[in-house]
């Protein structure tokens, strides 16, 4: 009799928990927004986060990094694709000739990225690099996304400058900074060469260490090769340094389009 009562009580507890969970989800739906989304747009200042992290700021940096990756994936895969499907279904200019592969000219995905991800992207990467200045990959991610996805050169340079300050021994940051100076700002060789020298003399790297192309680049500049040949070496080096195959293919498409539009001399 006592055992039966205990079983009934346990079943009652389980039923109460299931009902409570159901009403919790209904309540969230009524609320109309996800607390997840709210959270993303509010991060305290870096100094305060450092204090609140109680010495574990690298772990907090990791958490923010993963959150950002998930948000980026969610924006691209779930929300962006959903909008793409709706646009295709509705018809109209965006629906024609737009595949679900980021097309840098006129893609619904890119529009969505710019609209929804860009405000948080810089903010999050800035905090991550403040909390863990030794974490190299966010600087590189900031450079690539800000320059190639969001077309924001100043923010891209910001991450590279921060990387050069916090990780002076890494070859990538002066190399990419020289890339921006050469291609986007059309700076003379005298401005670009010191960055290449610094890159060649570096002793560490974020992923690949001591590749040959910064040295090849420097030799190309010192021997005053043509801009076409120098451009070729720079782009080749940039592509070789990208580990992610999808990003690499996107970059190849991007440079092909630049070649057609001739908006950048190379």
């Amino acid at each position, binding site marked *: 009799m006592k055992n039966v009562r205990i079983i009934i009580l346990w079943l009652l507890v389980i039923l109460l928990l299931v009902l409570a969970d159901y009403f919790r989800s209904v309540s969230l739906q009524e609320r109309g927004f996800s607390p997840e989304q709210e959270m993303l747009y509010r991060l305290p200042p870096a100094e305060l986060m450092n204090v609140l992290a109680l*010495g574990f700021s690298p772990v907090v940096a990791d958490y923010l990094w993963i959150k950002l990756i998930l948000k980026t994936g969610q924006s691209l895969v779930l929300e962006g694709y959903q909008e793409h499907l709706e646009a295709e279904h509705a018809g109209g200019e965006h629906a024609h000739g737009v595949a679900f592969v980021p097309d840098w000219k006129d893609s619904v995905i890119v529009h969505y990225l710019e609209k929804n991800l860009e405000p948080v992207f810089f903010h999050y990467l800035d905090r991550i690099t403040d909390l863990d200045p*030794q*974490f190299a990959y966010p600087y590189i991610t900031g450079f690539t996304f800000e320059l190639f996805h969001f077309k924001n050169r100043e923010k891209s340079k910001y991450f590279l400058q921060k990387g050069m300050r916090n990780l002076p021994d890494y070859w990538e940051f002066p190399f990419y900074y020289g890339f921006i100076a050469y291609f986007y700002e059309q700076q003379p060789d005298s401005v670009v060469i010191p960055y290449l020298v610094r890159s060649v003399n570096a002793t560490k790297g974020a992923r690949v260490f001591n590749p040959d192309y910064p040295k090849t680049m420097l030799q190309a500049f010192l021997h005053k090769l043509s801009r076409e040949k120098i451009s070729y070496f720079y782009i080749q080096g940039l592509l070789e340094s990208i580990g992610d195959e999808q990003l690499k293919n996107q970059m190849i498409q991007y440079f092909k389009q630049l070649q057609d539009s001739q908006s950048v001399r190379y």
Partner: protein
Amino acid sequence: MKKMLIIAETTLKETIRNKILYNILLFAVFIFFLGIIIGNWSLGEQERVILDFGLTGLHLIALLIAIFIGIHLVAREIQSRTIYNTLSKSVTRTQFLLGKFCGLAVVLLFNLLLLAIVLNLLVFLFTGQAHPGILVPVMFIYLEMLIIIAIAILFSMVTGSTLASILTIAVYIAGHMMGPVLQFLEKVEEIEHTPLYLPYLIIRGVRFIIPDLGVFVMIDEYIHGVALSEAFYGFTLLYFLLYLTAILVIGIMIFQKKDLK
């Protein structure tokens, strides 16, 4: 010395039988696996994330052991009156306290080494990289927790278990916050003319009493391969020895005067 070692051995055997210890160790393994799962989302930074979460988990587990077992180490013996038995066998109060401290220190050491081996194994299984050097940050976590145990014992003799736990956690938080707060305040220009000057002076004064636990956290340096000088290790060890001795001496003085009735 022999009596102290006997008390330490008894404490070791009692603590190993404590169920809280096994629950805490299970929690540690859970945190390690959480790090592995989260590491898969990190875009090529899996090793770093597993080590970050693993070492932080190890730190938290050691903290739980230090606080929850350390608080009750002496207090329980006083409450249950079993301390009279021990003290009646011509064991001094100093020997008793130090024996208890050493017993828990050994338990904590074994647990940390075991967890470090498990973490190393998991990192090797999932990333192919072994990390024998992980013992360095683990040893510094151990030193930090010895200080926490000493503080927990000190508070448990002065007040009840709940308040002692809260005060120990408060000291832990303050000990970790002090470094970054002082760093931030020292960057403020002409702080003497700002309202922050008084808090700055207070924190600088309190720094002598509350341990600066941030010096023992080496997770970042280990993960990024930043080499620390031998002088740093030497001075940190010196700081640890001096501070621990001071806390244990205070604890012994309080225990000598404590009315056990």
